[in-house]
């Protein structure tokens, strides 16, 4: 395939200051869900096509095509150039991509056990046993489901600066979801494992144990205390620390948002954004996590990013365009969901690094407040720096002790205040938040995490 793309790129005649890249992306996936004892969805998905970007005189043109013959791709490339030229008549900002960054290579997720070699019955069994164990636990368990997913994708990328890259990604995941119900009171429990890799990442999932664990927690939550409301001290567990560092802080570190003046971290490189104990990294080169990869969708080699060091902001997430615009180095953050989308500045595996406090020590420092656990996800308004996250459960902290369990609740705060208001950082960071990050309609696999984090002045949205 690379040969075809190279032939097309060599036929394109544009000024050397302009930019064109061609990316062929193909993906195959399978997804199985069992719900309340029945196979609810058993499906196979294939997507494939070619994406062409042209940056001509400060404007982008982007086209996609599902035909992969040389002539069709060339025609589509010419169209991308043509619409970019129209855009350039209206463009007011300077845009270019430097000649300095050329990548050649081949990368891919390491597979110990290729999940495509595992028969479907074995996959069905994993989810069916998980779901059954949860369902049969109690008649107060209203709904139980378990899902298995795998996807295998390939990208071939060439550009007119000389980049030629081939990359493969393999992602697997197994999930469980339980809804416990008593009258109109409902509580949900969700958990999953998986990452970039093969069946070896799923093998450790013990279906019965996982099903029972979810059901037990669901029932406990039905009789949990109602969550409080108001401004308070909060301990965020590794999952919530992860969702904060991804959603609130990480998105504000994306250089396309910075350039668009839609980030509260604009102009803050080398400025203090948190207390000295805060160190934040994003590392797509960590093995086996959902956001692990070798090359991004622009063909840039991925590397570890140091976002915050000792409370000082050090780096943004860059595409080739944003690195050129801000005169910084690209760091392999240009990720695209599939051939029908352009690469955007995105995260991989983002985390707050470990500190030195045990959970008990953090609770003692907290005195009065809540300990929140297990994120459902959230959203953020990066321009305003305000975030909202939902969590599955928590505990009341009274007199420095973790006491009664509380049900699901939301929390809200200001991005720039959290790391400034951090009074304790836990001993061990965990990659607990496994997510699919959404941006401009594109969902990509990511992981986020951190240690337990003690933070003051968070708004909790309980009903009491």
């Amino acid at each position, binding site marked *: 395939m690379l040969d075809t793309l190279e032939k097309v790129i060599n036929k394109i005649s544009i000024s050397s200051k302009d930019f064109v890249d061609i990316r062929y992306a193909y993906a195959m996936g399978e997804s199985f869900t069992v719900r309340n004892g029945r196979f609810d969805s058993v499906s196979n998905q294939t997507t494939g096509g070619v994406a062409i970007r042209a940056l001509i005189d400060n404007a982008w043109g982007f086209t996609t095509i599902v035909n992969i013959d040389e002539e069709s791709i060339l025609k589509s490339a010419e169209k991308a150039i043509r619409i970019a030229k129209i855009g350039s008549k209206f463009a007011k900002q300077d845009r270019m991509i430097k000649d300095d960054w050329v990548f050649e290579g081949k990368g891919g997720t390491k597979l110990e056990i290729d999940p495509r070699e595992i028969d479907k019955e074995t996959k069905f069994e994993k989810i069916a046993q998980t779901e059954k164990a949860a369902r049969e636990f109690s008649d107060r368990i209203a709904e139980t489901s378990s899902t298995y997913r795998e996807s295998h994708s390939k990208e071939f990328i060439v550009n007119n600066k000389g980049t030629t890259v081939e990359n493969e990604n393999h992602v697997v995941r197994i999930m469980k979801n339980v809804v416990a119900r008593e009258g109109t009171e409902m509580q949900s429990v969700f958990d999953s494992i998986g990452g970039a890799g093969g069946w070896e990442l799923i093998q450790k999932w013990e279906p019965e144990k996982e099903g029972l664990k979810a059901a037990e927690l669901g029932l406990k939550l039905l009789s949990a205390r109602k969550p409080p409301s108001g401004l308070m001290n909060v301990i965020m567990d590794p999952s919530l620390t992860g969702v904060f560092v991804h959603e609130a802080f990480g998105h504000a570190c994306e250089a396309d948002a910075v350039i668009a003046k839609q980030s509260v971290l604009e102009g803050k490189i080398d400025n203090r954004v948190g207390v000295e104990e805060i160190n934040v990294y994003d590392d797509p080169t960590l093995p086996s996590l959902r956001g692990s990869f070798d090359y991004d969708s622009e063909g840039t080699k991925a590397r570890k990013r140091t976002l915050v060091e000792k409370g000082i902001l050090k780096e943004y997430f860059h595409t080739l365009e944003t690195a050129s615009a801000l005169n910084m180095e690209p760091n392999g953050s240009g990720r695209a969901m599939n051939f029908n989308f352009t690469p955007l500045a995105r995260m991989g595996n983002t985390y707050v690094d470990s500190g030195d406090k045990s959970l008990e020590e953090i609770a003692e420092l907290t005195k009065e407040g809540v300990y929140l656990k297990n994120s459902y996800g959230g959203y953020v308004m990066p321009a*305003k720096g305000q975030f909202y996250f939902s969590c599955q459960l928590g505990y009341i902290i009274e007199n420095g002790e973790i006491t009664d369990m509380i049900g699901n609740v939301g*929390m809200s705060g200001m991005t720039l205040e959290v790391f400034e208001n951090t009074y304790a950082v836990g001993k061990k960071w965990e990659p607990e938040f496994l997510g699919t990050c959404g941006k401009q309609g594109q969902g990509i696999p990511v992981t986020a995490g951190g240690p337990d984090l003690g933070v003051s002045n968070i708004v909790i949205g309980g009903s009491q």
Partner: protein
Amino acid sequence: MSTEINLHELAEKVIKLGLSLGADQVEAYTIYGAARNVQLERGSIRRFTDIANSGLGVRIIKDRAIGMASTTIFSLESIENTVKNAYSLAKVSPPDENFNSLPEDKRSTPDIDGCFDQNIIDLSVEDFTEMILEGVQEAQVRDDSIIGGSFTTGNGERFIINSQGIDRFSKQTSISGYLSVKLQDGDDIGNAYYFDSSEVLGNFDHLKVGKEAGKRALNMLGSQKIESATLPILLDPDSCMGTISPIISSGINAFNVFNRTAYFVDKIGDAIASEKLTITDDPFYPGGVDSSAFDDEGVIPQKLNLVKDGILTTYITDSYTAPLVGLENTGHASRGSFAARPKPSTYSLDINAGETAKDTLLEDLKEGILLIGSSITDMSGNPQISAQINQGFYVKDGEVQYPVKNAMIGTTVFEVLERIEDFSKEQQNRHGHKSPWMLLSPLQVSGGK
């Protein structure tokens, strides 16, 4: 047929191949279209996009087991592989005893006006851009306004064919877009956006998109943290629709009812809300952005009264769920994408208006919160709601005082419906989605002060 590929022939091939492999029933769902997008950054054009938007979804039933497969690649080889994949999955899947049959519906397809506009297809890139820049001009409420946004036109054709005789075709166009405006005075940030969409070019108000985004950003300057309190909430029509619609759609969806996760299980005929609430669902609203002559299984839907004076009157169903809840198929099957299995979902909700003027609702508010384009919803799917106030204002003695910062509302879906105190007589109509202003009696508000 305007596309290079004959979708009908393709869909028929899928049915034939599926049956020849040994399938009991087969369904082919195909879409073929294109989307053009203009992306803005700091008030200027950043990118033009012209992409294919096509896909095939196949559902095969064998011995009551269901296998599904999908592809975006329309070559003969790919189509054949997709059918074979669906068949092999159906063969190895355990049977679903609740599955009866793919739907049959011999009624002819009704016509709905205003769902296709050639003007959208003929709109040149230059004219589209000029139009967007006019919107940007409206959004420029101050010289230092930071304006972003995205506008899209789309057109597509859809075929649904199954082995039980369903054979439907529709074509539609759409135009949609939003502008976001950010204003900054030191640490004080006013940030807002406005969105609109339509099936017809002439109904798309690009100037209003700009005007509203700019006006709302100005209004959001000077936000303050408030103390926690129990306060009445006044919701504008977008906030009202954004709050009520997900509660109803999820709460009366027969799939959720059967699985006991719906909010309103066994509640048909019971009061689920204040008697002020009456809602209908209209699939046939002319020019409605979510109108459709048939659902995503090819069944012709019905205009339904969902809630009448606070009493739940029905659930929404599709071919799979209707027998499970003992109701007729209401034709509400909906797929998130061509690759997904259909589940029931609403079309265009009409939340009935009240009799009080919206200005009176505000003037009579002694102390409360006014929500503009900010819904009371939660991500968990549970009845408990813990919602952030994205665009809210503190109101005292009938006057808006200032926007609130970092505040939340804690409640439940049941409480929201019970506490509907009044609706305005004015009703906003967003291309078929109709909603008035709504006043809720006091709810718990958590403040950041």
